[in-house]
């Protein structure tokens, strides 16, 4: 039997190569996703572990048993005298404003430089660490964004607005920590310099490096007794590492889940392609298998030969796919690093579970895919199989009633769940509606063979009208074996459904964010303070108002007030006469022309929460000055005049004088100034004029609505790009599935093609026929996938939408169109090889083919 198997393998090289590639691609996708997940985890773990490297003992505040807000540096000195301690350093940070090359203040975090070299959590990239009080090292990202180079000057502003100047002596790379993830600028100073910025600074922890004479546990004991009882949490470095790892697990868990989700999609899609390919392959061999049986091979022998062949192929292709997957993962990491502008940190850890998954997918799926058709093939009496005309509709789906009933059940259940979900709130709504969508997708897949005919008829109309007979033949071919066509297209259907759901959701999110920006920023420009605890000076408003290029200026401030009955609200304060101009709430009840000193407008949700009605007057309590905390808080009676919808102004709107009465600190200035340019003023000239006023102020930051939107879009697009790359692979496999089915069908229909050629179909027409068939199949998957995807994203946006955050449903027609065009182009590509092969076969040779 072995010789027959080998001979068979040799004789069917083309078909075997096709199915091997299908398996290899599937395995590559699954293993690639897994390697990518492990790689990301490894790199994050490494980054986090920088903070625990060299640490033998860490001393922090025991917040459960102590009210202390931090540790003074004296404690570090105290610990350094303990036996067995080689060095101690403080860790913590200070918020400051950083004035870099651009003269603009940016919020920054200052960390103290560890004096013990082994305790430093940063790696120097260029230059060196500061050694003198007037030296500073900056994080490499900060250096890029603030345009700082070695030798440059940096000023830091403390809370008291005192400036101190430093010379940049080096750049470094931070390990990943909560701080670095926050994206703030980051610099290090000697601890002494840091304490000059804030003399009363308290640190988060003291880290200790031992001299190796005692173990970590002994060191902990020694330090505990040295510090005396209470108030400290003293841990070994090993425990710190454990905590870091646990933290990584907790935080990277989401990413891993997402990647596993992709791996699962990959698994499903690849399994479908492999299964389909193998089913066709064995179906085509039914006659050959029957012949083997006629010449005396037992049923078991034939069955075993098919399985052995599948096994050999699965093993070989899995191996190829595993290596391919590692390559894909490396390429993705490289691309990701490039797109975010970071240093490429390519890691390809191959865990045993990855190898197991790869072979499980490659070998098991292939085996299962081979067993079912092989069983079917060997069950047929050999003579019947020999006689049957295999290249006709031998396998036409007589889709049973059971299938329809099952599909309908899924569809009805899915729609019901989706509708139910839209009535729920938040995460629950998402889960219920999401499950509903999933059921609908499965229902459509189950119903697939039944849908092929009608959809094909609709899609076939245009090519038939344009291209005549070859298109007509193609449409017939595309639906001649509905089960096969459905299986071929469902992989693509799944891919496109997911891609379009994600894309429409992303676009809806962008649109929602833009709408929010528009509501918040009806102005051309916004001037805000870069430091959250410092306001923009009053005269900035006057200066801006004096500009000829500026038509209108409106200042805004934010304050927290206490409504009656201990109900707190965060409200926006604006100029009373800016209403209808730069401040444009959507009024849903009451009337609002301009806001008087004793009036308040509430958001709908705040009104509902407090039960206040229009016309109610009530006493509002503000807050007293920080430097006179004991003085009674100011109060003011306010009348509710209107309600507005949305969250753009938080809970309510008051006039600025009202705000100043309730929050005396606002006398110093505003938190935001909105600027509207005069009609006909060129955007560049307008910006330049505004900038002349804002530039001298170290804290004034100029933002245009357009810039804010662009910033938001870029973030969403980056995420979307990553998703596209991952799901794109699934779509690629699906398209390969189409190419595969087409190639196999072409082989199967050699005689038919020859007959057509004899009857007068030209080579070009034959090629055209296959291309149209491929396009029809691709469009079937893509069109149904798009309809489902758009429907699902509509359900999900509706489910997630709430009164507070109304989500806008926005279909990105451009991107959807691109997807369809891409599907058609890919289909043409998929048909290229099979079409070439079919057209090349001579008529006589084709007729002779068995």
């Amino acid at each position, binding site marked *: 039997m072995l010789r027959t198997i080998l001979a068979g393998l040799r004789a069917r090289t083309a078909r075997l190569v096709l199915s091997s590639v299908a398996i290899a691609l599937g395995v590559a996708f699954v293993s690639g996703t897994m390697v990518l997940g492990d790689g990301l985890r490894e790199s994050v773990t490494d980054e986090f572990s920088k903070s625990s490297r060299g640490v033998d003992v860490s001393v922090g505040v025991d917040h459960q048993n102590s009210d202390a807000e931090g540790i003074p540096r004296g404690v570090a000195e105290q610990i350094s005298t303990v036996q067995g301690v080689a060095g101690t350093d403080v860790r913590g940070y200070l918020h400051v404003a950083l004035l870099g090359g651009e003269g603009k203040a940016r919020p920054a975090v200052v960390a103290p430089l560890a004096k013990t070299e082994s305790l430093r959590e940063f790696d120097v990239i260029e230059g060196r660490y500061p050694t003198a009080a007037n030296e500073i090292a900056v994080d490499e990202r900060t250096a890029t964004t603030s345009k700082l180079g070695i030798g440059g000057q940096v000023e830091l502003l403390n809370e008291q607005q005192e400036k101190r100047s430093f010379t940049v002596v080096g750049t470094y790379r931070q390990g990943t920590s909560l701080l670095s993830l926050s994206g703030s600028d980051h610099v290090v100073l000697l601890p002494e310099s840091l304490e000059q910025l804030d003399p009363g600074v308290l640190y988060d922890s003291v880290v200790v490096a031992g001299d190796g004479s005692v173990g970590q546990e002994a060191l902990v004991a020694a330090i505990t007794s040295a510090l005396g009882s209470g108030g400290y949490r003293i841990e070994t470095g090993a425990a710190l590492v454990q905590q870091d790892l646990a933290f990584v697990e907790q935080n990277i868990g989401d990413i891993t889940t997402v990647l596993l989700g992709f791996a699962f999609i990959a698994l499903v899609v690849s399994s479908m392609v492999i299964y389909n390919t193998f089913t066709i392959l064995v179906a085509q061999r039914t006659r050959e298998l029957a012949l083997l049986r006629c010449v005396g091979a037992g049923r078991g022998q034939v069955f075993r030969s098919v399985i052995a062949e599948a096994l050999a192929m699965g093993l070989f292709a899995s191996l190829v796919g595993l290596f391919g997957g590692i390559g894909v993962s490396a390429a993705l990491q490289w691309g990701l690093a490039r797109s975010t502008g970071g240093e490429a940190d390519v890691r390809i850890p191959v865990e045993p579970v990855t190898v197991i998954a790869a072979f499980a997918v490659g070998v098991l799926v292939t085996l299962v895919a081979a067993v079912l058709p092989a069983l079917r093939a060997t069950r047929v009496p050999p003579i019947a199989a020999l006689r049957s005309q295999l*290249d006709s509709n031998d396998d036409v789906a007589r889709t049973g009633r059971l299938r329809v009933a099952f599909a309908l059940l899924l569809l009805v259940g899915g729609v019901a769940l989706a509708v139910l979900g839209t009535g729920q709130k938040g995460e629950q709504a998402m889960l219920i509606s999401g499950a509903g969508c999933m059921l609908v997708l499965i229902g459509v897949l189950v119903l697939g063979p039944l849908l092929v005919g009608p959809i094909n008829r609709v899609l076939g109309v245009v090519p038939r009208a344009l291209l005549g007979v070859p298109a007509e033949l193609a449409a*017939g071919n595309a639906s001649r074996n509905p089960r096969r066509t459905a299986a071929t297209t469902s992989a693509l259907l799944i891919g496109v459904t997911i891609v379009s759901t994600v894309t429409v959701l992303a676009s809806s999110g962008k649109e929602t964010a833009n709408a929010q920006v528009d509501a918040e920023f009806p102005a051309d420009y916004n001037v805000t303070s870069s430091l959250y605890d410092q306001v923009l000076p009053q005269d900035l408003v006057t200066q801006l108002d004096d500009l000829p290029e500026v038509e209108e200026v409106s200042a805004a401030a934010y304050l927290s007030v206490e409504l009656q009955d201990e109900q707190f609200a965060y409200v926006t304060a604006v100029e009373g006469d800016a209403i209808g101009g730069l401040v444009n709430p959507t009024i849903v009840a009451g009337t609002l022309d301009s806001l008087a000193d004793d009036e308040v407008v509430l958001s709908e949700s705040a009104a509902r929460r407090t039960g206040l009605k229009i016309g109610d007057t009530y006493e509002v309590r503000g807050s007293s000055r920080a430097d006179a905390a004991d003085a009674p808080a100011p109060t003011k009676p306010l009348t509710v005049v209107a309600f507005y919808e949305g969250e753009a102004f938080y809970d309510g709107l008051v006039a600025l004088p009202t705000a100043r009465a309730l929050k005396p600190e606002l006398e110093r200035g505003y938190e935001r100034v909105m600027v509207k340019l005069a009609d006909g003023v060129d955007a560049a000239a307008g910006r330049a004029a505004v900038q002349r006023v804002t530039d001298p102020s170290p804290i004034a930051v100029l933002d245009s609505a357009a810039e804010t939107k662009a910033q938001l879009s870029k973030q969403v697009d980056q995420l979307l790009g990553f998703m596209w790359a991952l799901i794109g692979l699934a779509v690629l496999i699906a398209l390969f599935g189409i190419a595969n089915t087409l190639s196999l069908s072409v082989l199967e229909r050699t*005689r*038919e093609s020859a*007959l057509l050629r*004899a*009857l*007068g*179909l*030209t080579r070009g027409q034959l090629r055209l026929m296959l291309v149209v068939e491929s396009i029809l199949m691709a469009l079937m998957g893509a069109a149904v996938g798009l309809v489902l995807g758009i429907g699902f994203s509509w359900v999900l946006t509706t489910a997630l939408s709430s009164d507070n955050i109304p989500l806008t449903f926005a279909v990105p027609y451009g991107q959807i169109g691109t997807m369809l065009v891409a599907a058609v182009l890919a289909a043409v590509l998929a048909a290229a090889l099979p079409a070439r092969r079919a057209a090349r076969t001579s008529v006589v040779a084709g007729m002779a083919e068995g």
Partner: protein
Amino acid sequence: MSAVVSETGTIGTRTAVAAGSLVKVYGKGDTAVRALDGVSVSFEAGKFTAIMGPSGSGKSTLMHCLAGLDDVDSGTVHIGSQEITGLSDKELTKLRRDRVGFVFQAFNLLPTLTAQQNVLLGLELAGRKPDQEWFDTIVDVLGLRDRLRHKPTELSGGQQQRVACARALVSRPDVVFADEPTGNLDSRSGAEVLDFLRMSVRKLGQTVIMVTHDPNAASYADRVVLLADGHLAGEIHNPTADSVLSALKNLGA
């Protein structure tokens, strides 16, 4: 139909297909097979000619070359007055579509199309409108009227071959080539197909060239051309099953 009969008489002297010194070699060197080794033969228009000979004598090869399905190594083929050797694939395709009809032994029909669509396929490819009267005549003569909407899998082997015959004739080709059209049929179905082919020649004025193994089938023809080892080995006019059988015996088949 009498008008048609007299018409065949007038064009009976015209040559429909002619081959001159045809040579077709398969393979190279030691394994080369001269499937056709200098065959010169012509086929009269409006006549039913059978090509016979032992297995491997080159019958199918000759037919493929005559029909422009295969290229020749040397020699010429004319269909009507047009020389087809040396035509490009595109020109040959167009020629087949417009001027030649085919009936093969099996796999004559496209499984995705109904009987009617199969019959009209060649015309559609050529972008020609079917002649409704002619179509009706053929369909009725072949008894296919109530089978037109069926798919090939729903037809018997004999019915399938009759559909193939209808398709070959519906475009009024200059010549119909049939390669063992009854090879897969029982004797009754075979007789039906052969009757029709003969009728299409006698009554409808068609030209038919048929390859067959069966002396009985050959007896339906006006003339039998005998092939052996790629050579012409004689011919029989107005053959009967017996005369064909004895001629074949002489060839050593």
